[in-house]
């Protein structure tokens, strides 16, 4: 098992290289000149040329990549073309905020999905099941940007119970921080909640119809024990797969939500940087996002072993 984890971790290095090379090439072949974007209304050709030189964009492409890799290995991801802020600092400054939002959304999404999904599966076709299904359809159908603005109009403008976006530092003002977290977290959670809820419900329904549960009931076990100890754990494998993918997507899933609620996270940084061809920032974010995906799939694979003892990554001993 330990060996398996180590091997997976080592594999991440060539994958990271590959990702960085692909992103590097993709970015440069996408039409659009970062210097022109950042020039805005000031298009003096001499100043533009000087900027291009300062950013090293007048160098041949392979050389630009080698320089970038050289610096990256030493932990220097360069400076943003647009703001001159060191890329590492720009990302580290935002990462905790995106994580806070993402984790809150995940807790809402997973928590509600597990509880409501289980109840819906147990009381199939009951009013609760119907309401849950209705919300599922609405949740999947409502785009983030629409739901976000609706929530602001209702809770911030009509009822004035929650602030309309923005971020407050958790250390200096934890209450304000949490208040500002609620709406974006719900917005972000809704779409994945719908998927998770469906998944929990159908997966559990599937397991509930299996023979071994009939056996468990025949043994005289109470319904609670049957569901929680026997059915739940087995129904979780497909569910965990989906949760795992969502953790990986946390970083970039927040893009729209962060823009609506002006939450200063990595998602917004990504959008601005891609639109503005801010090469160093995009490269760093994609790399980080790829790493997050790799780590979360590894975590899911490890979870499988706990959920289903038949799965084993060690050398088979027969």
């Amino acid at each position, binding site marked *: 098992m330990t060996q398996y984890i180590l091997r997976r971790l080592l594999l991440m290095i060539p994958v990271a290289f590959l990702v960085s090379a692909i992103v590097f090439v993709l970015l440069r072949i*996408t*039409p*659009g*000149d*970062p210097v*022109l*974007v*950042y020039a*805005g*209304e*000031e*298009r*003096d050709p*001499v*100043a533009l040329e*000087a*900027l291009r*030189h*300062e950013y090293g964009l007048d160098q041949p492409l392979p050389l630009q990549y080698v320089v970038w890799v050289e610096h990256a290995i030493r932990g220097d991801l360069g*400076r943003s073309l*647009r*703001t*001159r*802020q060191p890329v590492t600092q*720009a990302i580290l*400054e*935002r990462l905790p905020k995106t994580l806070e939002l993402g984790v809150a959304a995940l807790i809402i999404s997973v928590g509600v999905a597990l509880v409501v999904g289980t109840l819906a599966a147990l009381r199939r*076709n009951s009013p609760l099941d*119907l*309401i849950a*299904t*209705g*919300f599922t*359809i*609405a949740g999947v159908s*409502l785009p983030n940007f629409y739901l976000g*603005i*609706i929530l*602001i*109009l*209702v809770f*911030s*403008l*009509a009822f*004035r119970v929650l*602030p*309309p*976006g*923005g*971020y407050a530092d958790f250390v200096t003002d934890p209450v304000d921080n949490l208040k500002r977290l609620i709406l974006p977290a719900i917005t972000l959670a809704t779409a994945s909640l719908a998927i998770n809820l469906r998944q929990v419900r159908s997966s559990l329904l599937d397991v509930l119809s299996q023979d071994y549960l009939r056996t468990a009931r025949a043994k005289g076990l109470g319904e609670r024990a049957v569901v929680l100890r026997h059915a739940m754990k087995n129904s979780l494998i497909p569910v965990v797969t989906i949760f795992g993918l969502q953790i990986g997507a946390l970083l970039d899933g927040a893009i729209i939500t962060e*823009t*609506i*609620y*002006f939450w*200063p996270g990595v998602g*917004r*940084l990504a959008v601005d940087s891609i*639109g*503005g*061809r801010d090469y160093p920032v995009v490269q760093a974010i994609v790399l980080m996002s790829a790493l997050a995906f790799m780590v979360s799939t590894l975590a899911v694979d490890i979870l499988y072993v706990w959920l289903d003892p038949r799965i084993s990554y060690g050398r088979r001993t027969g």
Partner: protein
Amino acid sequence: MRSARYLLAFLASFAIVLTACSQQPSGGNGCPAGASPPCTSTPPPAAGKPTYGGTITFALENDVVDFDPMRSRAFVDRNLHYQIFDSLVRIDPTGKIIPWLAESWETSSDGKQVTFKLRKDVKYHDGTAFDAASVKWNIDRYRTTQGSQRASDLAPVASVDAVDQYTARFNLKAPYSPLLATLVDRAGMMLSQKAVEAGGADFTRKPVGAGSGPFRFVEAVKDDHITLEKNPDWWGKDKDGNKLPYLEKIIVKPIVEGTVRTTNLRTGDALVANNIVGKDVESLRSDPSLVYSQGPNYGFDSIYTNRKKGAAFEDGRYARAVSMAIDRQQIADQIFYGTRTPGYGTIAPSHFAADPTFKPFEKADPAGAKALIQQIGKPLQFEMLVTAGSAQDLQVAQLIQAQLLKADIKMDIKSLEFAQILTLQDKCDYQGATLIGWSGRVDPDGNTYSHIYTGAPNNSSCYSNAQVDKLLDETRATSDEAKRKAAFRAAEQIYVVDDPARVWYLFRTTQLATAKRVQGLVPYPDGLIRFDVGWLQK
């Protein structure tokens, strides 16, 4: 049966959402929706005596990119520059140039020397004194630093001399009448050498101690907030001789989404904003806790019609036909809800050279356009590039498309990424047309020369007209206001009507939306707020 129940459940949940969003405010004051002519209003006179103290939250349409005026390229940056930095001269709300760090100035008879007498009571936020040597250092920095965005603004300056401690002389390569107007903005902003040098590569994000203006930079967290605090040692005074500024603190919040900006005003989470989406104006006007005002602005909106050889508008008469066929009032009303007004060129209504009777295409004339194209012989069909993701640009393009159809002009809309359009514009490598806005400059020169002159950087329609170039050179060489006015107007008749460089269709307005208790702020034609005179009612 089961699917019917699903549908019911879905409809029920959707109904909740719909009820929530139909809650619109009713009744109210101010101008009616879609008022025409646009309802221009100034804020009510300040109520009572100004009081000191308080914090203002300012909702900005985007985060500041560069605090350093030398590197700054984005319009949005200037909203902060004007609070932190002082420039040599400024404008008053009518656009007239007024003394600021320079108390007076004098131009030599040959127009090649401009001498400024400086204020003696100015200190930068880091404690260093402002004097003529500082002026020289700043202007030289702007002129000679590699990659300086101000170098072209100051290209006509040959050198600066510190004549004595408080007298600075600009030596020009040739007479250059727009110099003063240039020094109103970033090219005239004065920074402390010590602070700039201490800031190093991070200076443009953290301009600590660098300005001499009414507010000091405290901190900036990217895309989150910027904090400024009162500079208690500022030299400015109000008309009663009281020290300015009144406000203790300004917190700037970048809110990109227009509707969310409006909501923040309405909930009181932001007290001031100066960029309001047209469709939201009515809801601000009808909100009793808010004041919305609107004034003239130097900015314009136009369509680059590619005049390069082989492009759709090589023959300038096609550009004139488009200009004739479009209905400017309809664009202003339907898409901008009166927050912009019909526009006819680069010289905005608040420029000294503006001719209020110059409205060459006031009424849409599709029949005339049709006749003109028949005269040319070949029907006009062209492609309009629109920034992908910009709903507003797409709306404008679609409306123009429909208007042109009445003149049998066929316009195809093609969406491209902003960065891509810029690259095509830069080399005039597009087939037909693209939309282009301009935030406006104090002197008509800043709105015109770089857009129209042969080979100039913002001349992305590749326009060239020798007569226009000659007239524009004239406007720079003479400082006689009457002569400049005549040359500007003669040039505008050519590049708008006789041999059009492109199609101008709107002038912008300066917007200012504040909570009622915010007092003292007035709209300036450059669109930027001066917080030094603002105060909060207790």
